[in-house]
């Protein structure tokens, strides 16, 4: 593999760490709130029946 491609690949890899970190943070922050949302949806479903 040419040297320039290696550099580009390594840069892409280092950038993807940011993507994974941001996704993890968003999931950790949002998932606790889904507990209340799912309970609300269940209540709505019961009311619908």
């Amino acid at each position, binding site marked *: 593999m040419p040297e320039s491609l290696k550099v580009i690949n390594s840069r892409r890899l280092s*950038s993807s760490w940011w993507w994974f970190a941001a996704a993890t943070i*968003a999931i950790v922050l949002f998932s606790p709130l889904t507990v*209340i949302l799912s309970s609300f949806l269940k*209540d709505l479903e019961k009311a619908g029946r």
Partner: protein
Amino acid sequence: MISQYLLLEYISGTLIMIIGVGATVLFLGVGSAWIITVWDFPYKRFFSLALMMPMAIPTYVMAFAYSDVKYDIRDPLMLLIKERWGTSVMSQSTEIFNHGLAIIILSFALYPYVYVAARVGFSEISGAYIENSRLLGRGLFRSMFSVGLPLARPAIVGGLLLALLEVMNEYGAMTFYGIETLTTGIFVSWTDLGDKDSAIRLAAIAMVFVLLIIILERLLRGRAKFHAHRSSKKNLSIKTRTKFGSFVAFSCCGLLFLFSFVLPIANLTINTFRGWGKSNLINIIQGPLVDSFLVSLIGCLGIVVAALVVSYASRLFPSLFMKTLSKLCMLGYAVPGAVVAISILIYFSGMGKYLGFTTLTSFMFTLTPAGLIIAYFVRFMTPALAPIEAGMTRINMNMDEASSMLGRSSWGSFFKVHLPLLRFPLLGAMIVLFVDILKELPLTLVLRPPNIETLATTSYGLIQKEERIVDGSFPALVLVITGALAVLALHLLILKRIVKE
């Protein structure tokens, strides 16, 4: 399960507070912003900053500071009503009095949100509009309704939204005045009755309320597009000065500042001096002060780092997915603290059971403040993410390309280019976060480990639970002083930035 009657009581209590506080903060915030913008009167510059200062006083501290009204005015008045008209009239009057008092006191603490937003909104309007309105025969007062308010509507509605979300989140002031809202209902169901299902149900209803408030804000903004007309250099700052006008403007601003900042601070200070000789206040405050500052510092640094990661990732990968992730991170700010607390508790205890790691709950909530810090992340990501994202968008993309061309990786560019350019928004975000965490009450009350006491929980415990107003005033005063210093620091930071630019 929670009874239908109680549920209606909580919902009506929340609605009354939202409508009452909403109308009062609009009146106080927009009125004072209009006066400061269009009238020229003595000490105008002082008042333009001073009217922001009540932002430093947490709503429950404002309620504690006006405890004299509760004990010295309400109670004797209600006894008089009981003697004259009987118990049923007294209980109705007490309820009306409590609601009225709570609305006024919460409005004193929350009007700065609308004031600041309205000032920004009015400053965007060109003075030519008002001049035209006056040339066509309208006075300054009528011009406010026909020209100023419609043009500044998006900013004012934004400020109103923040104030209403604070009302939804309020716990300390509501319990102090005995007002039943969804947030107090969640606490009663969870801590006093141990009824987990009812607490979750109330939390879900509170979320629906928040959603409705946000939808209402969108509707109030309307579909109309608002553009500031900047072709005229003259801003909306008409120098109108008559003796009577100056007197009225000075009196309005002076009275508002007196009732919303000077009197509460004076009351807390007097109570602190009264308690100085009687109890050892230094001992009372020592532990909570260290705990508060430690927890706030850890939370604030962690949140800023997380916000930096999310905003930089959005810059590197500008896709719809990343935008959605960043919006999801901001969702927690709209959710009341009590709802976040319950979500975190249920989520981690459920996860502990699912993974077969039963000590996870005690590790998160009893042995360490890890659960509390995560809850702060969920609740306070927006005050960090919003200014940092705004700062990121101000950095030209050419900088990234130049840095990459010169051989820096994304990490190198971040540390050498973006981080130094983001120092102003970072500092601003850290100040806001530090104070927000320091004064947060409902989250901390539910999720703190037994060995951690913050200034907010100490003040609340001493004044509300033990009725030791004199002892509880000192931690409340420390909270207010820290908040006031933060507001001043932010003001200086903004001034410095304006001068630099």
